[in-house]
């Protein structure tokens, strides 16, 4: 999956021009085009519906106020994605100081683990739920930078080049962050498993 499937549609440039000249309705049409994907990313970054909602709305408003700074050398979605992701990372850093890292987000919106997509036998439903919770907890314990690359690569299926463009770092850094993030996630999951086993034994 690329990062901007319909970025170059002729309507988008037109909408951008109108939004730059102060037409808020045109900007709202742009928001409608990208909101779903942007919200998914931010939600996966934060793991919390309300926080994600706040961050996305803030990102759209910041983008509107900074439209004059958008030079058009990157795609609009890349630009707005960068704004939202930076806001999410910043929010996550602040939250990590006050949220218990082991707290598992409980989401009532129906989002969560999808057994079908993971191609795992359906008769292992309980295991999925358990694994999903473990994974959520492990993701919460990752550093924001590591979580961001995992979200972009493993959940959003972005290419290294796109990730590097959004995060404004070299591709080598993306590679390095990715394998460190995976190793850290693995280590946390193993710790969780070990502590779970010990708990069962005692």
């Amino acid at each position, binding site marked *: 999956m690329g990062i901007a499937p319909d970025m170059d549609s002729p309507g988008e440039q037109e909408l951008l021009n109108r939004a730059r000249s102060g037409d*808020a309705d045109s900007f709202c049409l742009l928001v*409608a085009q990208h909101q779903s994907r942007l919200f998914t990313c931010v939600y996966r970054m934060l793991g919390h519906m309300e926080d994600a909602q706040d961050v996305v*709305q803030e990102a759209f408003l910041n983008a509107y106020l900074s439209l004059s700074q958008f030079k058009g050398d990157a795609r609009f979605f890349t630009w707005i994605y960068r704004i939202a992701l930076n806001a999410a990372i910043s929010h996550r850093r602040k939250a990590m100081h006050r949220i218990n890292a082991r707290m598992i987000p409980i989401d009532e919106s129906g989002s969560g683990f999808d057994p079908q997509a993971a191609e795992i036998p359906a008769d292992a439903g309980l295991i999925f739920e358990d*694994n999903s919770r473990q*994974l959520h907890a492990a993701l919460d314990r990752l550093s924001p930078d590591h979580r961001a690359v995992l979200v972009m690569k493993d959940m959003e299926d972005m290419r290294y080049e796109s990730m590097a463009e959004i995060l404004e770092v070299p591709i080598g850094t993306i590679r390095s962050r990715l394998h460190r993030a*995976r*190793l850290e996630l693995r280590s946390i999951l193993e710790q969780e498993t070990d502590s779970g086993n010990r708990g069962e034994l005692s």
Partner: protein
Amino acid sequence: MNPNDPRLKLITAGLDGELPLLARRRLKRLLRSDAEALAMFVALRNDKKMLAGFSNPVLPVDFSRTVGLVLAQAKPQRVEISRAQKSPVRTTFVTWNKALALSIIWLVGLAFLAYWIIPVRGPLVELESRVAESTPRFDGNESVQGLAPELETSEFPRVVANGAAPDVWSNWLMPEQETRAASIYPAEKAPQVEASGQSVHGNNAVPVLGAPAVRRNNLEELSLLLPASLSWNELSAVPKTMDAVIGQSGPVQIDLPSADPNRAVELLLGVLKESRRSVMVDGLAMDRVKRGNIRAHFMVLVEDVSSSQLGSLLESLRKANEKQGFGKSGQFGPSLIVSSPDAMRKNLRAMVGQDLLAETFVRTSKSVIPRDLEGETAKQALQAVEGGRPSRPSTATTPPVQPTVLVLAYSPYYPAVKSQPQSAEVRKYLESRASGKPGAGRALLVFRGWSQ
């Protein structure tokens, strides 16, 4: 698997489908021949699948509508503001000016509070000044005998004086590390320690290693030397006086904040090489020492060391620091001798797999401990490392003691990156570990980064 392991990079890129054909073949060969790599590949692939399995969340609101509403409300406000600015009364401007001035005053006040009023510096200042006041300075002109007689007979200067310092990289227990270590610290780069007898430590050797000269009791200058790597809790845990440190029954830790911990450990390895001690460097630690651009923190556990040997080691480290051009301006910050905090012991236990400090420095009687430090020298602080027991006098007939040193690394920023109990070096160390010798103890040196 070590995070810097090239196999891991190959596996990750393979999982992401970002490998060219040749590299893909290499990966296949690796997975066929390397069970550990295969296990890691399978585990990471499962994690990736699980992450990909998260379904998309349902959009809770239509942002195009909510953003539209906000923008619609904001529009008239903008107009109002622009009209207000045109009015002759400049109340808005004055209000903003006031707010700005108040904010600056508020920030300056906060900064002042953080650095001067909150008494977190108290223990350090007192600790430093107590050591300085209670110990006469050794300026190199007076006799060393009165200051630290046991250092004159310690192993280290004698070995060097006799010229019997062969290539002791061969003492390393991991042969495959010899070449790596030698490339990092070749023999010609090893710090040359003077055999004149003046290498015994002055009183600053233990509490301050190559740190900038400071006026004692000058709070302003001293505060600049506070190691930034210590957390609030750790600073608060520093005992208020040296008496309190020595009076503790727990293990003692020597904290060595350094501007560049990698370089500091490299210096230490050179010093250990010269002093013919057996060193066991964990793979991760060695890797971190080599990679100057990836900073790490290090734990160095020195086994079976007497206070004189430890003093000699620290003094040699200080000298090596100066010889390498750091001078007094400071590779090292002010060091601290503290009761090893629980967090540090826990960290060490996680890295080694067992609590090596559990039986260390347990004192049976407090009466052995000098209660009054006034007029005593820093060597007594070092004796605290031995639990107050008198150090064994070093004589010509005593066989040279070569305590084993274990060097481990960890990253405070990436908790998963640290030396592991499963590593070959740690396992070997534990296997070869003997019971402690009388008159000797263990010291935990911690090298942590701090910004100058």
